[in-house]
């Protein structure tokens, strides 16, 4: 079972939801994803997704001073991002219900 293919579409929605909860940065997003069970999430796999979300104007990145020293990019959700998150969750519930009804009927 190729988990990566399944994860591709889901990860963007989950990243946006994490950013929606509070302003955050790459490493923290990875840690939160891993805490939620996405153990394969790494900063290297996350970065291209964050870049894409920024280009789509769903998130906005701003460089700020960090306690560690070098400036860090902090992300917040845009208005388009907020709409995307609610729509994502709606679609997810629909898909989940459909899959459940197929497997539940086994």
């Amino acid at each position, binding site marked *: 079972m190729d988990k990566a293919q399944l994860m591709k579409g889901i990860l963007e929605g989950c990243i946006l939801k994490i950013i929606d909860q509070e302003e955050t940065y790459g490493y923290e997003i990875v840690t939160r994803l891993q805490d939620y069970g996405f153990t394969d999430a*790494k*900063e290297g*796999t996350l970065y291209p997704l964050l*870049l*894409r979300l920024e*280009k789509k104007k769903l998130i906005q990145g701003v460089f700020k001073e960090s306690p560690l020293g070098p*400036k*860090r990019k902090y992300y917040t959700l845009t208005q388009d991002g907020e709409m995307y998150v609610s729509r994502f969750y709606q679609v997810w519930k629909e898909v989940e219900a459909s899959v459940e009804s197929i497997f539940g009927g086994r």
Partner: protein
Amino acid sequence: MIRKNNLEILKEENVDRIANMGGEMWDQLAPVFRYLSISMISEFEIESIKKDLIGMAEEAELQHISLEEKLGIPAKEFCEDLIQSVRRDGGGKSKAGEICMVFLSSVVRTLTFFWVLDNVFFGEPGRINLFSIWFAVILGAIDVGALVALKFAFDRRKRGMIEVGGLVLILICFFYGGIRNSFIVISRGWNLFLGMILIAATVLTYGIQRWYWNRQSQKYEWK
């Protein structure tokens, strides 16, 4: 006063931060940068990505871990995924235009330089040195080569050495080469007209580049 465009400002910022980086971390980062630089994605996007990666590398240094440990995946895999992702989102479309812009700008600037040298400093108005044209094209090609494969563009010392070496070579060719023998002689009127065209073209290409890079910078959170 010639003001820097946003691409030049971002490049300088990246070079300054790299200069403060440890050698070991730079050795890990350099291949990633090289890989990005020879990919056909927009120049501003490359510099913007480099800024983010430099930040990750600086954090990795403070955490005493390698860049690959920070990324969590091999650097090559990271680069391939990143470039694929950027190109899928249309990130490579403007590269050809950028290369043409750099080439033309370099050729025009060099031709103007030689025209001014011949007419103002050497008092040889009306004589177009064919070497100047050849040299301008060569320098334009070098600038394009530097854009496409920036091996030394972010290593200040090497870049400085190459620039000084190039300047010395240019001066040697200019003063001692026997190549300054092929001329086209034109009338005074045409010579002035040519000079005006070249100066106007230099100003125009400077303005176009500045406008283009500043416009590109609006797509990215680079400050």
